[in-house]
């Protein structure tokens, strides 16, 4: 074990997989010589060669397209989209092509592409460096979708994604690359001494489809993913309530059993995410949970989310769910 921040953990996952499987290739904009604008592939080109870790033209559509072809022809491409906001030029290749190849070809062809992308706000990125577009991928059969929150799960989920026979989109909360975020922009902790920064140096996986119980309690269930997991931790503390905090980790497929079990216990549920409310993945969670847990629910399922607006620059702290906003929702739900 070794203490790693999230960037190091991701780097380690890539390194481990490049070592283990010669079919793994890593590429994207500024990923090769430079090691990525967030440094997640730092040193990997030098170690593994430019034919395995390389720069691409500035073309997300082209990146996804060559990944499709490489995966079809026996490789395990791992590509980076520099910011999740820039994944949309590749959207057609991902949702119409990569996701559907296995099915459309009667199982004759498939492409186990992994697409990594830094997502979410909190770095003063404004409109186009802050979006968290996970829900726009969860509606596409054939894709798996995961969202990391800590160094430990970032590495374990990424290795699972690379080893998966299915295409996986891996969201990484860029705000947490170098430390957890508890909702206070003036308090910038690193991952030092955080239990989830204790990361094995070698190979391990976190199965896709498995949630993580980050905190245990019995009055309310909080479901979240990415940066918001840490903000929820703080919010629970502020609320004074006893809550299960479930870090979803995988969005497709998601761990319904874990959530149903928790909500059956608590009778109350709040979903927290950064993305806008309307048609965010919180909608799917709320809809599914009320379907299953209806008779045991003691209050409506609440969603605490980003507003239905673009992501702002200077006023981002009024946009992202804050510990106090979440805490208030917890109090109201517990008292309902």
């Amino acid at each position, binding site marked *: 074990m070794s203490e790693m921040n999230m960037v190091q953990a991701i780097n380690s996952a890539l390194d481990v997989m490049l070592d283990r499987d010669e079919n793994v*290739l890593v590429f994207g904009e500024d990923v090769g010589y430079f090691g990525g604008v967030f440094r997640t592939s730092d040193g990997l080109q030098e170690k593994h060669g430019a034919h395995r870790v390389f720069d691409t033209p500035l073309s997300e*559509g082209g990146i996804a*397209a060559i990944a499709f*072809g*490489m995966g*079809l022809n026996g490789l395990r491409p791992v590509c980076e989209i520099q910011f999740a906001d820039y994944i949309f030029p590749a959207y057609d290749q991902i949702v119409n092509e990569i996701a559907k190849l296995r099915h*459309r*070809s*009667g199982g004759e062809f498939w492409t186990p592409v992994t697409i990594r992308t830094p997502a979410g706000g909190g770095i003063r990125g404004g409109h186009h460096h802050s979006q968290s577009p996970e829900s726009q991928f969860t509606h596409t059969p054939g894709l798996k979708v995961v969202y990391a929150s800590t160094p430990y799960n970032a590495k374990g989920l990424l290795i699972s994604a690379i080893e998966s026979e299915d295409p996986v989109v891996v969201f990484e909360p860029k705000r947490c690359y170098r430390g957890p975020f508890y909702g206070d922009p003036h308090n910038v902790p690193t991952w030092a001494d955080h239990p989830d920064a204790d990361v094995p140096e070698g190979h391990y996986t976190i199965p896709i489809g498995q949630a993580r119980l980050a905190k245990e309690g019995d009055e309310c269930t909080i479901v979240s993913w990415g940066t918001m997991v840490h903000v929820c931790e703080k919010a629970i503390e502020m609320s004074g309530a006893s809550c299960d905090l479930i870090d979803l980790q995988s969005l497709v497929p998601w761990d*319904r059993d874990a959530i149903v079990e928790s909500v059956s216990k608590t009778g109350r549920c709040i979903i927290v995410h950064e993305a806008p409310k309307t048609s965010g993945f919180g909608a799917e969670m709320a809809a599914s949970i009320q379907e299953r847990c209806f008779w045991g629910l003691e209050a409506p399922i609440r969603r605490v989310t980003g507003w239905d607006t673009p992501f702002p620059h200077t006023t981002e702290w009024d946009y992202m769910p804050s510990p106090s906003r979440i805490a208030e929702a917890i109090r109201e739900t517990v008292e309902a």
Partner: protein
Amino acid sequence: MTDDKSIHVPDAPFRPGEKASFGKWDYAPGDLEKPDPEACSSDDTRAHAEGLIRVLGDDDSRSGAWDPDIDDGILLEGLEHMVRLRIFDERMMKMQRTGKLSFYMRSLGEEAIAIAQTMALQNQDWVFPTYRQPGAQFVRGRDMVSMICHCIGNVEDNVKGRQMPVHYTYRDGRYISVSSPVGTQFSQAVGVAMASAYKQLDEVTITWIGDGASAEGDYHYALNFASVYRAPVILNVVNNQWAISTHANLASGSSTFADRGLAYDVPSLRVDGNDFLALYSTTQWARQRASTGKGATHIEVLTYRAGAHSSSDDPSRYRPSDESSAWPGGDPIDRLKRHLISVGSWSDEKQEALEARIDGEVMQAYKEAVKYGDLAEGPYPSSDTIFTEVYSEVPWHLREQWDEMNRLRGD
């Protein structure tokens, strides 16, 4: 209609009621030299990108530097594949009209393209087609029964009723699944080729895109990535003049499609797409470049879509109905046939016999295929196929929905 000071909107050269006249090709066989495929730069191919590579002349003889060194046996094989494709298409169109299949797209007038080009390759090479290159499957030995079963979408459809007809997939022949969104395969093919290069295998990938679809971003990605990584890929634009009702002049200005490749530093050729020999030869040339590490070749295949876009289309609404006969490229089957007759390797009688034999084969394949069901009557692939192969394993939410469907079916 358009005021010239306002938005300029180009029209097609000819519209219904007008007389189509294209003149003759400006280029004859022998007009263009054959550069050394391994030594040539993209600049060395400028004349080839702006001209037209031909081997079969207007007098049906073969000549010029691009005349490939192949014997008539191969040509006869090519002729047979082309005849098979045309008869196959006719049969499928009839089936479509009688409701046995939902939709169809013919290769009429373009039969030479995929057939000659695939024949010029090796069996280990990957073929990444659009709906207009089914002929490659004949070259790779696919059984017609299986092709028809796909088109009908019956229980034996290897696509399992999931895609529309003509969206073939044929892994054994390294013929990659056809996708409806046009253009996507063009850039993907570069990735297939890069994987071959990575594995250091002598494998080349060939792909095609339509004149219309070349306006998609994937065309640009393909040429750029292929150029940067010197991918062993053959990138063909099939310029058949039309994209449904839209003329090719909405996809290019007055420059040729082949010209585009040069701007990416990719050697580029323009070839008579109804000339089996020229197609064969240019593809061999491109393969040699690819397999010797020289990277991609871009080929504009100049042809004419002689039929409707698809069984849903009525071209008489947007072009003169006799336009195809004015096309200077002629009929690729006739041209090859006439050439083979002229050199004494073939005859009208043999051609008739060939057509009759193939007609019989197609008819027999058809009869066998419908035994496994047709669109009107079924049996169809089980609706279980809705849930399989979405993922490598069935996740819980699909399992649950599958169970629900079974319950509704009364299983």
